[in-house]
């Protein structure tokens, strides 16, 4: 267990290091990142001055080391446009994105898991086949289109829900549905496969032979075993939801991290973009680690050294 954790943490460190290096190189794709940080009206003197202030006239390797040092100290730099630390901007927007991701995850699990169970238990019926078709279609639905269609139906035509921006609970409904629908399909698929896998096991057959009803079988026998792949997928889906929020937030004028990222690109505020991307990568890596650990917590048969007893 400890050996596994140490090895896994070592891997995480290597990946973190790699991601930071990757971002460092992406910054320099056009040669000199100073141009990303100045307004279009800047004079050559301004550019030179900023380049010197930021240390971008030093050798590349020195810049790389100081970038690593900066990130290691949790310093994401300063927004050149708004003149506040990037971490402050992220902290002020993060709650909205978390709210949206939580709403979307609720929609995704709340719809996806029951749908997956129905798909597994009633897979021969025509109704289940239609449902499977709908799930498949949901996977191909761009969130920015489903979001717009929801606004058109529930806000413009019916007037039941506010079209955009934040406010009460009713503002959260449509963005959550638009964002969650894609993950819903993933949850449905994984749940279906997990239940089907478990249904063929001997313990299920003997439970049925003893006269266990389907309901009892589900709650007492299948739920725990089938939840293992679902939990793993959940951890990965959370990072997908956070990333997908970039687009959904723009559709619904939701003031989260995604919106600030897009605004920052258009306002040429590169440090903010970089901060959000770094954070997104860190969160993804952390969630993947969490998925691995949860995996063994739910199923004691799986030891963390990767051996399934």
């Amino acid at each position, binding site marked *: 267990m400890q050996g596994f954790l140490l090895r896994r943490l070592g891997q995480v460190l*290597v*990946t973190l290091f*790699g*991601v930071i*290096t*990757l*971002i460092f190189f*992406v*910054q320099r*794709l*056009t040669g000199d*990142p100073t141009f*990303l940080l100045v307004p279009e009206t800047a004079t050559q003197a301004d550019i030179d001055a900023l380049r010197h202030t930021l240390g971008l006239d030093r050798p590349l390797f020195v810049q790389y080391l100081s970038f690593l040092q900066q990130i290691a100290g949790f310093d994401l730099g300063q927004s050149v446009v708004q003149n506040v630390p990037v971490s402050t901007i992220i902290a002020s927007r993060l709650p909205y994105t978390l709210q949206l991701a939580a709403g979307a995850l609720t929609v995704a699990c709340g719809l996806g898991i029951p749908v997956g169970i129905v798909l597994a238990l009633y897979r021969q019926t025509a109704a289940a086949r239609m449902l499977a078709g709908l799930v*498949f*279609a949901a*996977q*191909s*639905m*761009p969130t*920015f*289109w489903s979001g*717009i*269609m929801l*606004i*058109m139906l529930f*806000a*413009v035509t019916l007037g039941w829900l506010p*079209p955009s921006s934040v406010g009460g609970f009713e503002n959260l409904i449509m963005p959550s549905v638009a964002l969650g629908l894609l993950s819903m399909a993933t949850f449905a698929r994984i749940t279906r496969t997990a239940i089907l896998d478990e249904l063929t096991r001997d313990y299920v057959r003997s439970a049925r032979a003893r006269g266990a009803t389907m309901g009892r079988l589900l709650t007492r026998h299948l739920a725990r075993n089938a939840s293992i792949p679902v939990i793993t997928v959940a951890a990965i889906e959370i*990072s*997908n939801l*956070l*990333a*997908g929020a*970039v*687009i959904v937030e*723009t*559709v619904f004028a939701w003031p989260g991290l995604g919106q600030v*990222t*897009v605004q*920052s*690109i*258009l306002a040429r505020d*590169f440090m903010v*973009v*970089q901060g*959000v*991307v770094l954070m*997104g*990568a860190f969160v*993804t*890596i952390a969630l*993947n680690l969490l998925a691995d650990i949860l995996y063994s917590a739910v199923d004691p048969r799986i030891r963390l050294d990767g051996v399934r007893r």
Partner: protein
Amino acid sequence: MSSPALASLPVAPPRRPLNLALWLPVTVIVLFVLAAVAAPLIAPYDPNAQNLLGRLKPPGTTSRAFHYWLGSDELGRDLLTRLIHGARVSLAVAFTAALLSGTVGVVLGMLAGYLRGWVEVLVMRVVDIFLSVPAILLAIITVAVLGPGLVNVIVVLALTRWPRYARVAYGQTLSIANTPYVRLATLMGAGPIRILFRHVLPNILGAVIVVATLEFGLMVLFEAGLSFLGLGVQPPTASWGSMLSTGRNYLGNAWWIATFPGMCLFTLVLAINMIGDALRDRFDPRLH
């Protein structure tokens, strides 16, 4: 009892029922491709021809020289024309980006799987690192550096989407490289280039095509998503993503502007994913 004469007749192979799950989406995609290729011939008007008196006209209206089958946008441009030209942008970007990232990914993956050693460690580590950054964020930061635009979108997608090909090519190459015929070819003096392209590549192509199909659908969505955010194809070039973004501002009075581009996008991606699914069943049922 069958007579001997009948038994010697050649037996017609049993007719397989027409696989609708494959041929329906293929037809849809062929239609989109034809529309994209022949866009200037079949589109009724010029995609950028404005008619300021015919702004935001609903489907089926006529204004001056224009008849708007699917309505007009905020500058009086014909929506149907722009949809057809949008298919061009969508398919061209997705195709080029998928081809570029596929080539890079497959070559790197094959090299890692065949040469092993430090090449394997290096390539597969970099793959892990790329895959640990959410794809849309990686695309966004790269656009932020390179700037928006049609060519840059292709570059961004090619740069960020190769690792999945590499992973599949790597895994498949690992198993193929150990087969007797490859070892025999090595014994007979074939160099790595010949081994990889003559012996390994044809065998892993099935798996690669499955990934490429699913990636192609993602590319279409990515281009539309970036253009929707204003980071992709720039106006006035017609792109479904930027049309959707315009339509978002006119939901109350011009529903058609956002509805039709979204429908095209959804139909195309659904068709691509259906083909990907059918191909996956055919080539490798274990590949997920």
